[in-house]
């Protein structure tokens, strides 16, 4: 067997994986720190940090979603379970916001009520989709 020219073997791949894993999380933490610092220390408006938030969100949810999908061992939610999780999430998001900011005017529904109800629905929906697709992928691999 020829020795490969770049000295890449399973151990160096494993080291590269561990290093990437470590620095991915460091980068995510630092990015969250930058957002926090700019928002709450420097007092910059939320709209100026959309790019940072988008990159951080994509990184966190992309990482988690891919891992959950490739793992293929997530419990698949039935309708009752999905509704229960959705209800808990809405209660947490809406309840927390109501306690912190009070009842928002109905005219601001698109930035207050809508995200509180739509956000958890998207999260639960994405979870259910990833769990189903991941399990299906794994079952197919097993039966091939």
């Amino acid at each position, binding site marked *: *067997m020829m*020795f*490969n020219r770049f000295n890449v*073997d*399973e*151990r160096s791949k494993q080291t590269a994986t561990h290093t990437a894993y470590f620095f991915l999380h460091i980068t995510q933490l630092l990015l969250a720190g930058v957002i926090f610092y700019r928002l709450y220390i420097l007092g910059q408006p939320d709209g100026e940090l959309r790019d940072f938030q988008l990159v951080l969100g994509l990184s966190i949810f992309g990482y988690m979603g891919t891992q959950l999908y490739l793992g293929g061992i997530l419990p698949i939610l039935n309708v009752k379970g999905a509704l229960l999780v959705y209800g808990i999430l809405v209660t947490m998001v809406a309840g927390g916001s109501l306690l912190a900011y009070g009842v928002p005017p109905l005219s601001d529904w698109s930035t207050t009520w809508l995200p509180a109800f739509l956000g958890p629905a998207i999260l639960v929906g994405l979870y259910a989709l990833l769990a189903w697709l991941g399990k299906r992928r794994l079952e197919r691999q097993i039966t091939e």
Partner: protein
Amino acid sequence: MEDITFENSLRLARVEKGLTQSELSELAGVTRQTIGLIESGKYNPTLKLCLILARVTEKSLDDLFWIKEGE
């Protein structure tokens, strides 16, 4: 899980075959450092590499790698 350690006789098998670490690493398609770390018990190779090493050294997998039960 009970306390177990992974042991191997790769160094002995390599010397029996008259190979240096560098030669064995070329035959197995890994780096010399990886062979050194396996021999010193500081790296646990994948099953794939274990099988390759067993084939190169003409040993069975059981002869080359085994589990030592905890005291």
